[in-house]
């Protein structure tokens, strides 16, 4: 495979993003009323921008990889990512826009008039943001490794540095166009190769056993196992081994392995015959990394599936980079229509990853053994088409993948850095914002180097679980329930989000190894979401005296159509807006001063 095209494509995407970021910086400086301008963004452009920011590495690479390894059950991920927007539309979209909140902590403060709840929400935003950034960096590392053989961490570092520079410079702020462009880039980067792959599949006689279980090799294939792994065989398997199996050193001998678990040493080459079933792979026991969540999924598939559905359906509304974008709609009605357009756009995008997953099961089934399943999307064009055409299509996919990492990572970094600057660091100056950006990126980067083994889409699923059990109760009850009190909201977020977070942390560190506890902790949403709601309701009911005095007026503002707004409320909103514009101007002035200080 020729790597030059792919590296060029990735470099082009990175360069374009930096350039547009730099231009955006210039534009957003000369546009004085930045927030007012961004409110005139129409539903269509805004929807493309939201989708562009939302479709991350997990969507671009992860889903196909999971489908390849675990079969069609994993298609619940894209369904859930899409349906999450429907739930968001039903309960949150218009009131959230009318609340005028720019971030989740803003919303908490506006609704409950409590600094404590605001800080707590901020902490959770940082946690969810980091959990979500982690797989973006890992995905970038994987992509670069597959494309060029560079070390694992390099791609993550490149994305981290580019995003930090762009966000710290303030460039990604106002650029709805960039995000919208990246949606279309990502769609093209998956759609065009997919069409060619389907043509290649058709000319191959359209084999369709990918839809049956389990996947099988279509031709004799040699697989190199890099790290020690356990093969679990349901039936006896005949395989040619060059390396070590079960401690025996073999040199190109054909052996017949009985059903059961077999340890394959690192560096071993296994040659499978045509038609052989692809065995399931587990991680070696000496591996310090977490046992895959796939194992608990195999034990309790129904529980895991419902946990996944609940987490993705309810978690979308709480993702830090999703909420921010709703403020750019001009009014509540437009926010609703934007959400419908988003549903259409991401739904259209999600028709593609399953195609790659199914073709991957046909043409690259050995990826389940090498642990690079997330790379299926990148490898398929070269594998199925080959030649210059395959290289070019592979380059297109690689560029699209990097667009996915960059857009989602910058949206998340922006949200996390904003919270860090506003609520954690001592002052709000530009210097602190930059410090916040570096901090926002440094933690997940370090984590991605340390916890490298989590499948990309799995890690995102965990972020969704935390968001669903903390922010979903806060938003839904905050918008629809008058008797919500600050202590109730705080307790609910702490108990729901905290327990989901601990469960996630326990899963990541590999405790407990297996059994029902592991399933419960690996898929926490099914118990942590009700727990969050229940705590919030019960504590609120037991503290009836703490209902904020302005609740009725705040709820009226959330729900009344804009044309019925009283003058008082309108002016209040205008004032908030002016304050924000003013803050931004001051910030820009400071940046300008700093720039002149630095430049010779």
């Amino acid at each position, binding site marked *: 495979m020729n790597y030059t095209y792919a590296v060029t494509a990735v470099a082009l995407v990175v360069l374009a993003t930096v350039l547009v970021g730099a231009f955006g910086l210039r534009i957003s400086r000369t546009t004085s009323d930045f927030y007012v301008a961004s409110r005139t963004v129409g539903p269509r452009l805004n929807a493309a921008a939201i989708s562009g920011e939302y479709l991350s590495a997990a969507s671009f690479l992860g889903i196909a990889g999971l489908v390849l390894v675990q079969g069609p059950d994993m298609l619940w991920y894209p369904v859930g990512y899409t349906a999450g927007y429907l739930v968001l539309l039903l309960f949150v979209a218009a009131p959230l826009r009318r609340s005028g909140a720019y971030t989740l902590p803003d919303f908490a403060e506006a609704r409950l008039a409590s600094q404590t709840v605001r800080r707590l929400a901020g902490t959770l935003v940082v946690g969810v943001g980091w959990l979500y950034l982690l797989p973006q960096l890992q995905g970038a590392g994987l992509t670069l490794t597959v494309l060029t053989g560079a070390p694992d961490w390099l791609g993550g570092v490149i994305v981290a540095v580019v995003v930090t520079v762009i966000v710290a410079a303030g460039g990604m702020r106002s650029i709805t166009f960039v995000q919208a462009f990246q949606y279309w880039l990502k769609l093209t980067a998956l759609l065009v190769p997919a069409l060619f792959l389907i043509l290649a599949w058709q000319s191959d006689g359209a084999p369709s056993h990918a839809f049956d279980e389990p996947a099988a090799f279509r031709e004799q294939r040699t697989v190199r196992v890099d790290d020690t792994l356990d093969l679990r065989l349901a039936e006896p398997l005949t395989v040619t081994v060059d390396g070590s199996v079960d401690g025996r050193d073999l040199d190109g001998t054909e052996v017949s392995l009985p059903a059961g678990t077999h340890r394959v040493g690192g560096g071993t080459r296994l040659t499978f015959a045509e038609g052989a079933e692809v065995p399931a792979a587990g991680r070696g026991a000496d591996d310090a990394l977490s046992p895959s969540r796939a194992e608990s999924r195999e034990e309790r*598939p129904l529980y895991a599936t419902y946990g996944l559905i609940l987490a993705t359906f309810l978690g979308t509304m709480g993702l830090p980079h999703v909420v921010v974008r709703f403020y750019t709609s001009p009014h509540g009605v437009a926010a609703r229509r934007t959400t419908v357009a988003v549903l259409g756009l991401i739904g259209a995008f999600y028709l593609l990853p399953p195609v790659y997953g199914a073709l991957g099961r046909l043409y690259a089934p050995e990826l389940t053994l090498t642990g690079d399943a997330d790379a299926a999307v990148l490898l398929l064009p070269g594998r199925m088409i080959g030649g210059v055409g395959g290289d070019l299509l592979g380059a297109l996919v690689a560029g699209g993948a990097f667009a996915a990492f960059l857009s989602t990572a910058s949206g998340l970094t922006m949200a996390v850095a904003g919270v860090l600057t506003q609520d954690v660091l001592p002052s709000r100056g530009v210097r602190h914002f930059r410090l916040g950006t570096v901090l926002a990126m440094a933690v997940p980067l370090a984590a991605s180097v340390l916890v490298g083994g989590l499948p990309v889409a799995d890690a995102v699923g965990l972020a969704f679980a935390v968001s669903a059990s903390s922010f979903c109760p806060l938003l839904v009850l905050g918008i629809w329930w008058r008797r919500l009190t600050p202590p109730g909201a705080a307790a609910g977020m702490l108990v729901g989000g905290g327990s989901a977070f601990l469960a996630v942390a326990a899963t990541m560190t590999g405790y407990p190894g297996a059994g029902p506890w592991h399933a419960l902790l690996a898929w926490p949403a099914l118990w942590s979401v009700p727990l969050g709601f229940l705590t919030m309701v019960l504590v609120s009911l037991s503290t009836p005296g703490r209902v904020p005095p302005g609740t009725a007026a705040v709820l009226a503002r959330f*729900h009344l159509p804009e044309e019925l707004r009283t003058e008082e409320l309108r002016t209040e909103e205008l004032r908030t807006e002016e304050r924000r514009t003013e803050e931004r101007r001051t910030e820009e002035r400071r940046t300008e001063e700093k720039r002149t200080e630095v430049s010779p």
Partner: protein
Amino acid sequence: MPQDPTERRVVVTGPPRRARRTSGYYRPRTEIDEQTTLGHTYVRSLMRIQLRAGLTVFAVLALLVGPLPLVFAAAPDARRLEWAVLGFGLYPPLVLLARWYVRRAERNERDFVRLVEDR
């Protein structure tokens, strides 16, 4: 030059609007603006009707999606069905549900505005 008959000025008679308003005519809009108990009742009624719209669509979504994992678990041989439903089949209903809800929510808001503005 002959005058076009349609351009002729016509005097429209009727009670002036201002007079109607000051005559103690019942105005919900003011109640909402001044945040009286009655005004809150209006907002509450809007919230209830919007919540009902949201919950209805949510119930349809739950009924549509909820049984699917059970169906797939009950029929492990229907792999192709699972591929088709999860890969393609669910997206159109999601978009249709969203459009249905938006139409309903916007109609609720229009009705509410008409009610309180007394048009």
